[in-house]
């Protein structure tokens, strides 16, 4: 039989007749107690030892107790001082404090315990000592002395009431711990008689071992492979980014090209191109973030004229315009975009420089800004998924088929299309879908075919279908978050971000 050093040492130190505590084995083998314990458990698993466990209570004197062991308990010192001053009559307390060497809280401690222990009486500040009391055999002092000398609660049979009293006085701390005692089995005795060789065990594999070839002869000590390891936080991509990337992957897979463009943009691109009348409630001060910078420069004049004409007179032979004011200064004012449809307008007009011959598919997943009340589901800044398809003769059915395909990638099926009104699309639909886990019917987007009043000024002759959706809504659907502020923004909770499951 071959055993590691530590196990063999424990076997040799232990007895088949007398249970030996781990501490004693540790002393004899000069191993650490935890090493002995680990070796003992390994030996037990091999049937070589048995381990008996029992709970032992220890009581350790506190620092305060150690002080009293040197100077005496305060009440004992008071008693001695009182006897010294006058063994028969009452003595003023004030005279005794100095003589007894009582300082600070010790005075109260002495008074509290003096009468309790029968050292005498205290009446109106006068101390009368009982001459028959014996300060040399104070049970509390004796017990403390025993414990301080390494005595044990069990072996020295210290009374439980006395321990309670000492604990109340904060003079001891009681602890319970497990004592393990090791006994050899018959198999172990047999094996010892037959002789056991030692195997060298090593803790770590070192480069030297590998180069020297020493690794061939060593045995690796076993680890507790079930023990907890220290926790670490790896870097991870923000979950809203993960969701955005997933949406981008889906859209790229469906043939969409990504758009990019300014967050601070002219109202012309944000609203006027979209045939939003200038007196539309969404264009008032309260809904938009106007910026304190000069108006945009270099809007394409012809396009501006065509857009203004669409607002005033409509497009086509039978077209009508809005009966609303239209002012170029307002169109040129710069604001934070309320939707990324401003990018769609820049691209569709050709202003962004991309080729716009049909067919085309474009998308973006970017931030938009709306002045809303901050609450668990509304932020002032959020991500909008925006997409459009440019092709000849698109129908409402193509729009429905495209969006069903997109949402199916996120597990949202059975989409309902509710006829809706947008100033910039006709027909328009709000999209409703079933929540993948709760089954609730929730709004998941807004869509439609861009109106002729939008497309004609941009010079687009084919049809364009478009839709928009808040990315945060998709995130909340996928992860079940209840408060978007925990995730997005400086109030975010790092723990939540660290612990959120990675979806794939």
């Amino acid at each position, binding site marked *: 039989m071959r055993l590691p050093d530590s196990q063999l040492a424990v076997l040799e130190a232990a007895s088949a007749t007398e249970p030996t505590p781990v501490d004693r084995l540790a002393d004899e083998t000069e191993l650490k107690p935890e090493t002995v314990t680990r070796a003992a458990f390994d030996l037990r698993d091999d049937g070589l030892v048995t381990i008996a466990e029992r709970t032992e209570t220890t009581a350790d004197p506190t620092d305060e107790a150690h002080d009293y062991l040197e100077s005496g308990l305060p009440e004992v010192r008071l008693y001695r001082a009182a006897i010294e001053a006058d063994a028969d009559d009452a003595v003023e307390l004030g005279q005794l404090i100095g003589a007894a060497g009582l300082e600070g809280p010790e005075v109260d401690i002495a008074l509290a315990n003096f009468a309790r222990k029968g050292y005498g009486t205290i009446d109106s500040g006068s101390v009368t000592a009982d001459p028959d009391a014996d300060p040399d055999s104070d049970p509390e002092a004796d017990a403390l002395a025993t414990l301080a000398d390494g005595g044990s609660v069990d072996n020295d049979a210290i009374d439980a009431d006395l321990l309670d009293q000492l604990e109340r006085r904060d003079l001891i701390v009681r602890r319970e711990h497990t004592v393990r005692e090791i006994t050899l089995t018959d198999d172990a005795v047999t094996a010892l008689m037959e002789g056991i060789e030692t195997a060298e065990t090593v803790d770590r594999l070192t480069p030297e071992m590998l180069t020297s070839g020493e690794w061939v002869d060593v045995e690796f000590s076993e680890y507790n492979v079930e023990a907890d390891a220290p926790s670490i936080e790896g870097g991870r991509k*923000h979950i809203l980014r993960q969701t955005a990337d997933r949406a981008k992957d889906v859209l790229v897979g469906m043939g969409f090209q990504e758009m990019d463009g300014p967050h601070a943009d002219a109202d012309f691109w944000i609203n006027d191109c979209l045939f939003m009348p200038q007196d539309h409630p969404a264009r008032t001060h309260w809904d938009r973030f106007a*910026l*304190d910078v000069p108006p945009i420069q270099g809007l394409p004049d012809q396009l501006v004229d065509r857009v203004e004409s669409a607002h005033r007179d*409509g497009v086509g032979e039978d077209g009508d315009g*809005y009966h609303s004011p239209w002012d170029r200064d307002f169109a040129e004012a710069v604001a*934070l975009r309320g939707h990324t449809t401003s990018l769609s307008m820049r691209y569709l007009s050709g202003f962004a420089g991309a080729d716009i011959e049909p067919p085309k598919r474009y998308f973006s997943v970017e931030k938009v800004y709306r002045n809303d009340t901050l609450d668990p589901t509304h932020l002032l800044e959020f991500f909008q998924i925006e997409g459009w398809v440019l092709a000849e003769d698109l129908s409402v059915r193509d729009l429905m088929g495209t969006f069903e395909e997109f949402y199916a990638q996120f597990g949202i099926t059975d989409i309902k299309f509710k006829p*809706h009104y947008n100033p910039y699309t*006709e027909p328009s639909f709000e999209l409703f879908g079933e929540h993948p886990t709760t089954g609730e019917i929730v709004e998941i987007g807004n869509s439609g075919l861009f109106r002729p009043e939008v497309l004609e000024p941009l010079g687009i002759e084919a049809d364009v279908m478009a839709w928009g959706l808040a990315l945060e809504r998709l995130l909340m659907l996928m992860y079940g978050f209840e408060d978007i502020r925990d995730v997005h923004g400086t109030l975010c909770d790092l723990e939540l971000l660290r612990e959120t499951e990675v979806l794939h």
Partner: protein
Amino acid sequence: MPVVDVDPDELRELTGHEEKSDDELKDDLFNLGLEFEGETDDGELQLEFAPDRLDRLSVEGVARSLRYQYGDETGVYVPNTNDPDWTYEVAESVPEGRPYVTGAIVRDVNMTEDVLESLIQLQEKLHATMGRKRAKAAIGIHDLTMLKGAGLGDDGSGHSITYRGIDPDGDRFVPLDADSEMTPAEVLTDHPIGDKFGDLLDGFDRYPAIYDDLGLFSFPPVINGRRTEVEAASRDLLIELTGTDQWTIDHICNIICYALSARGGTIEEVEINYPAATGPYKTVGGGLVRPDFGIDTKHVAHDRIETILGVDFEQREVADLFARAGLSASIVDDAGNAADVNAVTDGDGVVYAVEIPPYRVDVLHPMDLIDDLGRAYGFNELEPRYPDIGTVGGRHDRTQLEDAARASLVGLGFEDLLNFHMISAEANYDRLNIEPSATAGDGDRRLVGAGEPVEITGPYSEDYTQLRTWVLPSLLMVLENNTHRAYPQDLAEIGLAAEVDESENTNVAEWRSIGAVLARNDATYEDAKARLAALCDDLDVDLETPPTEHPTFIDGRVADVVIDGDVVGVIGEIHPKVLVEHDLELPVAAFELRLEALQ
């Protein structure tokens, strides 16, 4: 979106479908685009809908749409009107800011408490939507019997009221919900309603006022006089609307007239006499007869209907669907003669002339008629199909670079963060110990983070007054809000930063900035530098870090981030002053640089 309260019993009565249950009505209403939101305490249905069909802002209009949908009614209905007896004179003194007026007389209305309630709701909802909170149009409805109009003709025939402008304290009247006479100016200061609508008259020297023979009875757009208040016993009504656009007030007037006509009222025209046919009246003319129930016609090609809806229709199907939408379609043959629109043909090449009733305010283009037709057909009847269109997908260069840099940072152990682009000046500059437009030591280069702020005009929240000029302030706020969470906190963000730059056509320079912080007991400059160097290695650019000065960082432990020879950022140990300001009790090493430098 507007919500209208509708009494289901009234709806059954007005549609003539007493047998419909509440649930059946709700389904029928959903198909019209009216979504059931809940019930009022009185058991009325609260219906939400998009603000296009303003003719459905009352139970009368909803009932009318249902009757078309049920096929109980077809064709465009125009109520009979009687010839004018009343004239609305408009004086030259009318305020320039509110030049237009329109109206009608409606007699013999079957008024009840319910009808009155519905009328008041219709008026409120029209004010809120098309009336742009009364700025564009304000409605006044009066009990005609309480008005005394002076005759105009030589024989004393006819009656008139006058719309004019008066001095704010130029006259007195008793407004609704008041017991004593007030001047218009006093209404604005002392009457509860004056507070809500007084802003509309800011800058007016003269206030709008409408008079009859007995005096001032309406103070648009604020409040009517008490004398002419409409009650459940009122039968004959005078309607007046004032506003900034003639078309808008005329169409609101039509919607009200149609609702009252459904309540048994007879419409009587009125004459409008403007003081001139010039100035604001140039396009509308000097004299008008209102209400204008003229029918608009738009033309829709059969083929366009089929491509938009993706369905093949017979011609008679289209005609039927238009009828159900409350429209009326007709066709002419090649010779210009009327042809049978209900003929059983495939409709190829046909162009329908579609009549649009005068209460519709949402039909701007033939496409709107195709949408009506789709709703009548039922959009959810359409079978979705994936379009057979081949395109190639791809990512924008800018976001690809951002992804590559983010992947590198995450690999280096940073938690990727996402913060708001809007911030306060205090958080962006002061708490980072810098000042806007501050320059670096040599004076000719702006300090990283000290760009000129792009400020929000009239900000609503003191926490969001500008766009951030760098990312580090956001990251320090996240550290500040997470001191109770486990350390180390190594955070990074790639996000938008911006500053005023008049060389950009928007006057705003926008860029993506990389910010990173290492918050840990032993964070040092070296830790930050090691990671920045690894990032630069990953993206294959040359990094140098010559010493610099920056008040956000500790002197002697701060460097410019120089990539391929250009200063693009800053790296260092955050100054204790900044740490203490953010309630941080451990060192933070950080860097910030422009994403585009990694290109």
